[in-house]
């Protein structure tokens, strides 16, 4: 997988300051502070041509060895002309789980961020349609968090029962 070029990393460093840069299996990963995420998006999209948002996801590091933060958001970006790829990581801790929405830069972020909200409870500021997507609206938990058990907590029993006349 093509790594991010030196120019991209330099441009990113100029806009957001020091990069927590690392590489693994040919992937360049950059740690971005939550406040600087918008600046990083603008630099990457407008100055470096990263026009494809491949994926937005989240990892809950609750029981992970040596983890310093609870949640890590992962943005996979690609430039379809030069085939560069870069991974942005944003670490979040409770209680403040709010981050800038990427929908202002890439419209494709809409459903990906809704899924992250649904599964992990991360709030995206400025998201146009901030609702659950896979779980029903009555659901209160965020099931991909590590403190949520594999077999559920019996949310089904608390769902309102609809009769044929109400439906």
């Amino acid at each position, binding site marked *: *997988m*093509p790594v991010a070029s030196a120019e991209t990393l330099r441009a990113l460093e100029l806009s957001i300051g020091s990069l927590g840069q690392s590489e*693994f*299996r040919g*992937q360049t990963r950059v740690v971005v502070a939550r406040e600087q995420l918008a600046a990083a998006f603008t630099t990457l999209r407008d100055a470096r041509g990263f*026009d*494809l*948002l*491949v*994926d937005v*996801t989240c*990892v*809950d590091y609750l029981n*992970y*060895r*040596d983890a310093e933060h609870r949640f890590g958001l*992962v943005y*996979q970006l690609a430039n*379809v002309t030069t*085939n560069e790829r870069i*991974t942005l990581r944003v670490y979040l801790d409770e209680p403040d789980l709010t981050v800038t929405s990427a929908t202002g830069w*890439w*419209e*494709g*972020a*809409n*459903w*990906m961020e809704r*899924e992250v909200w649904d*599964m992990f409870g991360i709030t995206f500021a400025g998201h146009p349609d901030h609702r659950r*997507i*896979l*779980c*029903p609206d009555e659901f209160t938990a965020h*099931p*991909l968090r590590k403190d949520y058990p*594999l077999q559920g907590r019996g949310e089904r029993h608390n769902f309102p029962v609809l009769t044929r006349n109400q439906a």
Partner: protein
Amino acid sequence: MSLADSKIRTQDIAHDEQQDYLWTLNFGPQHPATHTTLRIVMKLEGERVVDAMPDIGYLHSGFEKIGESLDYNQYVTVTDRMNYISPTANNIAWHGAVEKLLGIEITPRCKYIRTIIAELQRISDHLLCNGAVGLDSGAFTFFLYAFNKREDIYDIMETLCGARFTHSYTRTGGLSQDFTPLVVEKIRNFCKTFPKVLDDMERLLNRNRIFVDRTKGVGILTREEALSRSATGPIARASGVTRDLRKDEPYLAYSDFDFTVPCMKQGDCFARYLVRQAEMRESLKIIQQAIENVPAGPINVSLDERMTLPSKKMVYMTIEGTINHFELAMTNRGFETPHEESYGAVEAPNGELGFYLVGDGTDVAYRARCRPPSYIHFAMFPHLIRGHTLSDVVAVLGSLNIIAAELDR
């Protein structure tokens, strides 16, 4: 069949009380034309769709949560059930990502076999997708031609691994079965008969007035929108994005073969149909080149890697084989993974199918995120259908190739 005029465009931002005359139609979750379980609530002005609100999650079964408790070899059975139209493509994507995390280089023979199977799955997926578009727009014969040929691919897979529908064909560092002469013969037969079927299919539909009228100019996605909305695969290529991971980031054995990436600029349903038809020809080219050049040698990585189960001969005749088998088969052992994270993606029939894996030392993933192309493509649906008529819904839905099992996971 024309695009929305400006009057309709402005209506979707109008207030609710001004939309009283609009009619709300519920489409799905059980409907023959959704093909799978998904629901769309549409606001109609007469026959014209003013807005569409997809409602998904009916098939959500927590695949990513299950991935945190099944080991890397067990989880392959779950990936079968994501895009069940091309299950082995998912298997290859999953184990490609796992091998990337582990840093294993698979054997040349394994690479070739995986390439051939991945391309067969691409043909299978495109046949279903185009067949369903034909079926939904009234071309039933076309659908039968496509399905008849998919049966041959199921037959090949059954001969190869014993399963017709959910193959679970790959293993970490290798495959479950090697090619047999019968499989090679069946694939050669398929290569011989398939071009004629493709010709027949194209003669049936490419200049068919009804089909062209129903798909041309419907659901247009421009290049900028395709990129901004994260489209990949045939849908992006029908809009002029020349991105194909097989060429751009060659994986498996794709760099050895001569093939082209079909692209179009129109970005409508007809362009998506044509791109898929052309891709099947290219896939066939790859299979023809690969099947005659499969390298000899083992399909699994060597014993030293301690990843794949050794052969029975090794288990019974050598001490290394016995120990290795024991280490892998016991539930409290298994192989070690790095304390790292990686993203591995392949060009699945539907677009970029990637897995973001977090390893925590054990052989069970700490986090197994799937980047499902169907999910990302279905998000574009309201945008594509706005301003078109109700009968265009099935054409657009079919051309996006939404597989609800992958959509909801």
